[in-house]
Each structure stands twice: as structure tokens, then as C-alpha cells.
């Protein structure tokens, strides 16, 4: 999809970039609390409960009217799922208004720096993620400075976008380790060490599994890769095999990278009090929380773009069977991308409610004994398909 080169002045470029960053940030800041709400609901439903259905206070007090509205929502088939939705505002308010405690013997500078690093690493990745490979819409003419200019579905078009994403994502472990060390406490330190070992281990199969799409697409550009892998132009039909295997390996490693169950050893509640963020409170803890969920969204976005066909309907390059002339299903759409991201986020919660945590040695076994050989074989198959056929 060629994008017409529109000459923009420097101011316009800057304002446009800022606008896109703000839009993406707001989207993520809305999605993360919604994800926490979805987590309560999904895990509740899986455990045959209802999850959050009301705010504290019952049917009297400040939250009374809201609770009464939610109670009557419970009778309506589709709306009953949304009961308890205001709780995500309550969660965010609680985090913001809580006291921010720094332990007396903590390393104050590093202690403050750690959550910032985590959040920066998690949010910076969004700079290279393409939600839609082209112009999403044109800004209205009356818009100040940038009126009438195209609003593109990505912030920057980095030609080594995937490298940028992987590099920045691996910085996130610094936040965890530094925060753990600066807390000057035993449990956070153990959690941080575990986290470092785990993330460094899983970085290897993660990167190797992402090499399969890179090899098949012959590019590192996020936009090009997602278009090529979705439409399957120039891909051998057999390429679906390494993509299929790579998807599951990538998802497994993604779980480990984001410290989610069943790989949530850094914050194993039963052994370590809360893991690396034991000593954190208030918004500093909120930052770690935000980073974890933002990372989940990034992992989902990458899996969607490289394996599940991104903004096209069918995954694994099967889109080639739908001609481009088909009105909605054959066309790229942001809705498909969002839907697939939401589905993978649901899988995150689904797995959390299903699988128990791995033991530490099992964790390392999975990474080095099974996933690493599997990805190498997978990469070999991909290379064979790319060059032999």
C-alpha cells in the first residue's frame, strides 16, 4: 500500500508525531485498566464466579446509585458482563492516591529510577509498532497546524523496527533488577534475580522464533513484514508450518517475558512476598503494573502482526485465498488487528486461570531443553522453505 509522500514542514512533522504519541499513549492508558478489569472478570468466569460486580458500599452511600444501576444491568444479557466496570477507575484512583513509601535504607535514586525504566521500555516499544500499515484517516481541515494531513497507523516507520522493539523490550529487565536491588530487602532481590535469569533465558527462543517471520519476509521493517506475512505474496504455501510452530513458541516466550503465569516466578506470591515490587507502593508500584500490562499488549501486537495476519482477516498468510476485491473481508482493517490483539490478551488471562506455576528448574528446562532446539529446527525448516523452493 503506497503512501503518498506529502511534504510536511518541520513543525507539522513534530506536531503530527506528538499527536500520534498522545493518541497511542491514551489508548494504552485506557487499555491497561480495562485489561485489569477483564482479568477479574475472565478469571472469575473461569472459576465459576462472577468477578467484580459492584463497588464497595452496597446500595447506600456515595456508590449506591451506581451499584443500583449495575444491579439492574445484571438482568440484561449483554450488559451484565459490564457490571463492575467502574472498578477500573477505582483501581487507578487508589494507586494514584496511595502514599509513596521509600524504605529508609533503600538506594533512593535507583529506587525511583527503576519503575521509570520499566515504563519507558514498555511504552517506547509502541513507537515502532504499526497498528495499520497506512493512512487511518485524514485530520479535519480545521485542525490547527496539521489540518488535512493524513493520520497514519504507526508513529515511526523504522526500517529495523523489529530490532528496535526487541532491544527496547529487553531493557525492561533492568527496571526489575534495579528496583529489586535498590529495595535493600531479601525477597525483592530474590525475585529480581529470578526475573533476570528468566528473561535472559527466554530472550533467546523468543528472538529465534521471531527470526522465522524475518527470514520469510526478508525484512526487519514492522510494516513491510506484517503486510507480506499476512497477504502471503511471495511466500511458499509450506511457510505456514514454521509460522504455526513459531507462533506457539513465541507466545510461550511472550508469557515468560511479561512475567505472566505460568512463568510468574519473579512475583511468586507463595514463596516471595510479592517479588521484585515488595517494597514499592503507590504510583511507583503502579508503574511496574502499567509496564507489565503494556508489555502484554506489545507481545499481543507482535504476535498478531507477524503470525496472525495483522490487520488482515486470516492468519499465517492464508489471506491469499481471499481476493482483494472482496469488500470487507479482503481489505485490511484496524478492527481485525484490534480483535486479534484482544483475543491474545484473552488467552493471557485464560492461561493464567488454567495453568499452575512452573518450578524454577522446570522453567529453565522449558527454555533451554525444549524451546531452544524447537526454534532452531523451526528456523531450519523456514530457511529450507525460503531458499529450496
Amino acid at each position, binding site marked *: 500500500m503506497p503512501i503518498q509522500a506529502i511534504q510536511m514542514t518541520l513543525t507539522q512533522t513534530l506536531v503530527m508525531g506528538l499527536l500520534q504519541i498522545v493518541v497511542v499513549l491514551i489508548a494504552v492508558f485506557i487499555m491497561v485498566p480495562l485489561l485489569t478489569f477483564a482479568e477479574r472478570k475472565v478469571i472469575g468466569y473461569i472459576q465459576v464466579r462472577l468477578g467484580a460486580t459492584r463497588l464497595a458500599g452496597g446500595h447506600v452511600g456515595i456508590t449506591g446509585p451506581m451499584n443500583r444501576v449495575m*444491579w439492574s444491568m445484571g438482568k440484561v444479557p449483554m450488559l451484565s458482563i459490564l457490571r463492575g466496570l467502574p472498578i477500573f477507575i477505582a483501581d487507578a484512583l487508589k494507586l494514584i492516591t496511595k502514599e509513596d513509601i521509600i524504605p529508609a535504607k533503600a538506594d533512593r535514586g535507583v529506587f525511583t529510577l527503576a519503575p521509570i525504566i520499566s515504563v519507558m521500555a514498555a511504552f517506547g516499544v509502541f513507537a515502532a509498532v504499526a497498528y495499520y500499515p497506512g493512512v487511518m484517516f485524514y485530520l479535519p481541515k480545521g485542525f490547527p497546524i496539521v489540518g488535512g494531513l493524513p493520520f497514519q497507523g504507526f508513529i515511526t516507520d523504522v526500517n529495523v523496527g523489529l530490532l528496535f522493539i526487541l532491544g527496547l523490550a529487553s531493557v525492561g529487565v533492568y527496571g526489575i533488577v534495579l528496583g529489586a536491588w535498590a529495595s535493600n530487602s531479601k525477597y525483592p532481590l530474590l525475585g529480581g534475580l529470578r526475573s533476570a535469569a528468566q528473561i535472559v533465558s527466554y530472550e533467546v527462543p523468543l528472538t529465534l522464533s521471531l527470526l522465522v517471520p524475518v527470514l520469510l519476509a526478508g525484512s526487519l521493517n514492522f510494516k513491510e513484514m506484517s503486510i507480506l506475512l499476512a497477504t502471503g505474496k511471495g511466500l511458499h504455501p509450506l511457510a505456514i508450518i514454521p509460522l504455526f510452530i513459531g507462533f506457539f513458541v513465541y507466545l510461550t516466550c511472550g508469557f515468560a517475558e511479561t512475567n505472566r503465569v505460568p512463568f510468574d516466578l519473579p512475583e511468586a506470591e507463595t514463596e516471595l512476598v510479592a517479588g521484585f515490587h515488595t517494597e514499592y507502593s503507590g504510583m511507583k508500584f503502579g508503574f511496574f503494573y502499567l509496564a507489565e500490562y503494556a508489555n502484554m499488549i506489545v507481545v499481543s501486537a507482535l504476535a498478531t502482526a507477524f503470525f496472525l495476519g495483522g490487520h488482515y482477516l486470516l492468519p499465517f498468510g492464508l489471506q491469499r485465498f481471499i481476493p482483494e476485491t472482496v469488500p470487507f473481508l479482503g481489505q485490511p482493517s484496524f478492527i481485525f488487528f484490534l480483535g486479534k490483539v484482544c483475543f491474545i490478551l484473552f488467552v493471557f488471562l485464560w492461561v493464567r486461570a488454567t495453568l499452575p506455576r512452573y518450578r524454577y528448574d522446570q522453567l529453565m528446562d522449558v527454555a533451554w531443553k525444549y524451546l531452544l532446539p524447537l526454534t532452531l529446527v523451526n528456523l531450519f525448516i523456514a530457511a529450507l522453505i525460503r531458499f529450496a523452493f
Partner: protein
Amino acid sequence: MSFLRTLIPFDIAGGMKLTGRYFGKVFFSANRKKVRTEIKHFTQEYPEVAVRLQPRFRGRLTLLKDEQGEIKCVCCLACEKICPTQVITIEKGKKEGRKMPFPVRYDFEMERCIFCEFCVESCGFDSIILNHQFELAGYNREDFSLGMEGMAQNMFEPSPVGRHSVAED
């Protein structure tokens, strides 16, 4: 074969299938429209929705009435005798057009009751039960001395707290 089983996580898939099925069940029955879908979840939304109790739940003692609205109790005093904490006091009496004795007073001191259901078991005429009232808190001590008549202490009426229940029918 075992190599393949190591490689392909069948067990994980089985577990995911199970939890997914439960998710679907609750997801499609989470609303309270009881007509179309049966409720599958265990959460009780108590103040708003009436509680689903087990059939053998032991609540407050109540006298049963027959089809004519007559109290079935015949004052055999079996319940009074068997009661371990002696919370039941019965005063025997006569009533016009009734062969059997009629309880003029049937007092039940709930503050000492241990809800053992011995009285119901000993009753040979099936004339008392422990009903499904569980909102048994009272506003003063008199709320716990229940009898057949009066507003505050009437055992046929809902309990003082249960009277303010907001549950939908």
C-alpha cells in the same frame, strides 16, 4: 510417540479446553434472566438477589399450618421435652370445633436456640420446621422472643432485618 507428546502440549490443551468450557458456560448465563438460561455460577448477589440456600438449611423455627389455615401443632410437648436448651414453651388450650388440643402460646426463645433441629425431628405431626430465614439479627432483646402473635415477635412474619430486605421477589 512419547517424543511427540513432549513436544505437543496435549495436557495443556486439555486444561485450556476445560476452563474455556466453564468460561463459556458462565459467560452466556451471567445475566439474571432465569427464563432463558439457567444460572451456572456460584456467586450469590445477596442484598439484591434472594439467596439460594440448600434445602436442608436450618433457619428460624416456625409452626406449620394445614390447608384450612389451622395450626397443625397438637401440643404433644415432644419438642419442648427434647430441646437441649429449653427454648420452647407451649401452653395447652382448647379451641372451638377442634378435637385436638390447640397451642394457646407457643414461645420460642431464639437467643438460646442452637438450631439443632431436634424439635423438628421429634415432631410426630410434621407441624414445625426450621424455615430458610437467615437474617436473624435483632434490634433489641425482645426481637428474639418469638411467639404466635404480635408484630415484633411473630414467628410467622419475616425477621426484623428480613423485613427490610431489598431482594427482588
